[in-house]
């Protein structure tokens, strides 16, 4: 086929969108809703995951030391802890610093703290960052065997719950996303089928005058692609507005998120290009494939 032929067929595709605007609009709406459903589910999942990740990162093990531990012993312990496989970072938190910090954070009880000055009841401690949180309990057992350990605080039960939760959420989210994708595909293929059916006469005429299948399909392909891309673009805008609104609501109104840390929610600015690209490309691919596959039945004349 010559370039001029392809140009003509592409132009036909564009014109068809306008000429069949009712059907094109129907396909557009179906694609828009489908992209939004699947896209928003994925974004929701990504954010839940990121929040769980945020909580995980906060996880640390605190090792409190016996009151009479000497500086030399502390240094020795620090090197022992640093040698452990699952320990990422070791930070010494002296009893004096702990006292100062506590005083600062509870300044309405300043008098109480002043009276305690010189008789600091707080212990020295190490704060450890753990590499693999699933191995926290094993690491804690190892630390317990060291000398001068007074007590250990580790949130490994919480970690286990989080890990389990993440698995379950991944499972549920994948199921929902797959189900939505399938439902969308079915609706889209039916819509394009209706659109092609409305033009079956046109297709049969083309066949009678000796049009090749490619010649018949290219305008449908272009048409489906344009409709899909438009749906993707509009879906991006809607997601953007909706996303920002939800983030605003969560950060300003819902305090519970401040505990987990709203910092874990991805700002839309960071993902807009990825979202826009995947929306528009998947719209174009689904739109084009949907209409081309639906023409197949009518091509055997």
């Amino acid at each position, binding site marked *: 086929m*010559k370039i*001029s*032929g392809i140009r003509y067929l592409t132009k036909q595709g564009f014109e068809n969108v306008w*000429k069949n605007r009712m059907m094109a609009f129907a396909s557009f709406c179906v694609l828009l809703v489908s992209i939004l459903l699947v896209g928003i589910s994925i974004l929701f999942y990504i954010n839940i995951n990121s929040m769980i990740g945020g909580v995980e990162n906060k996880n640390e093990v605190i090792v409190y030391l016996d009151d009479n531990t000497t500086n030399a012993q502390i240094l020795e312990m620090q090197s022992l802890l640093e040698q452990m496989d699952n320990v990422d970072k070791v930070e010494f938190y002296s009893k004096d610093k702990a006292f100062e910090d506590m005083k600062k954070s509870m300044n309405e009880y300043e008098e109480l703290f002043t009276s305690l000055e010189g008789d600091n009841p707080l212990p020295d401690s190490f704060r450890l960052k753990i590499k693999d949180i699933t191995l926290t309990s094993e690491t804690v057992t190892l630390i317990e065997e060291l000398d001068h350990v007074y007590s250990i605080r580790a949130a490994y039960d919480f970690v286990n719950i989080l890990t389990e939760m993440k698995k379950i959420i991944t499972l549920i989210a994948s199921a929902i996303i797959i189900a939505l994708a399938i439902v969308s595909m079915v609706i889209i293929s039916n819509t394009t089928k209706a659109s092609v059916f409305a033009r079956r006469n046109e297709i049969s*005429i*083309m*066949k*009678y*005058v000796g049009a090749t299948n490619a*010649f018949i399909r290219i305008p449908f392909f272009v048409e489906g692609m344009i409709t899909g891309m438009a749906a993707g673009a509009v879906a991006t805008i809607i997601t953007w507005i909706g996303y920002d609104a939800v983030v605003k609501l969560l950060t300003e109104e819902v305090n519970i998120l401040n505990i987990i840390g709203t910092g874990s929610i991805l700002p839309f600015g960071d993902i807009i290009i990825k979202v826009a690209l995947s929306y528009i490309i998947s719209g174009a691919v689904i739109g084009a494939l949907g209409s081309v596959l639906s023409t197949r039945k009518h091509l055997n004349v």
Partner: protein
Amino acid sequence: MVELKNVSVTYSTGVDALNNVSLKINDGEFAFVVGSSGAGKSTLIKLILKEIDATSGIVMVNDYNLSTLKRKKIPEFRRTIGFVFQDFRLIPSMTVYENIAFVLRVIDAPKKYIRKRVPYVISLVGLQEKSNSYPNQLSGGEQQRVAIARALVNDPQLIIADEPTGNIDPELSYEIVDLLKGINDCGTTILMVTHEHDLVRHFGGRIINIDSGEIVFDEVIGGVNED
């Protein structure tokens, strides 16, 4: 040229649509195919267009052996045939000009040629004034003339007209057949299916009568108006 040798068509429902039919229409001929509905006329047309395949026998059209013609080659084969339908089958969203130019675009004709050829065939059927009209703005007779121009535009060897006068006023039917006769005079083979006996009697020529899947009459008769 159309040639059928001992052709039978049995549909999957068990109906024998054509029964051992042999037929030859030479280049440049004008033939009427008549017969009551269900006699096998449509089957004959479908066979010639390779819409269906013969159960047995050989079908040759314009030097293509349709029994062995590959699917991929069907578009190429159909470009040697012009087709006029009873219900016109114009594309409603295209103007008269576009409906006709469309056929040339299908065969990838050069733009220059399209711009010259399309107005020419429109003038042949006398619709210069309606070039930019849409099919629904035309009368039945005018629509059929557009369809004839469309069948004519890529200069086919054979034009098949399936009840071309079936949907238009009787007075205008003669005009349509006259037009087809004129095209035939320029060398194009024409096969016209009809059940209007008045029309056939008026024009005369080769009459092929199909009944119950068999050719029961195939002769040249003189028309009423011919001298």
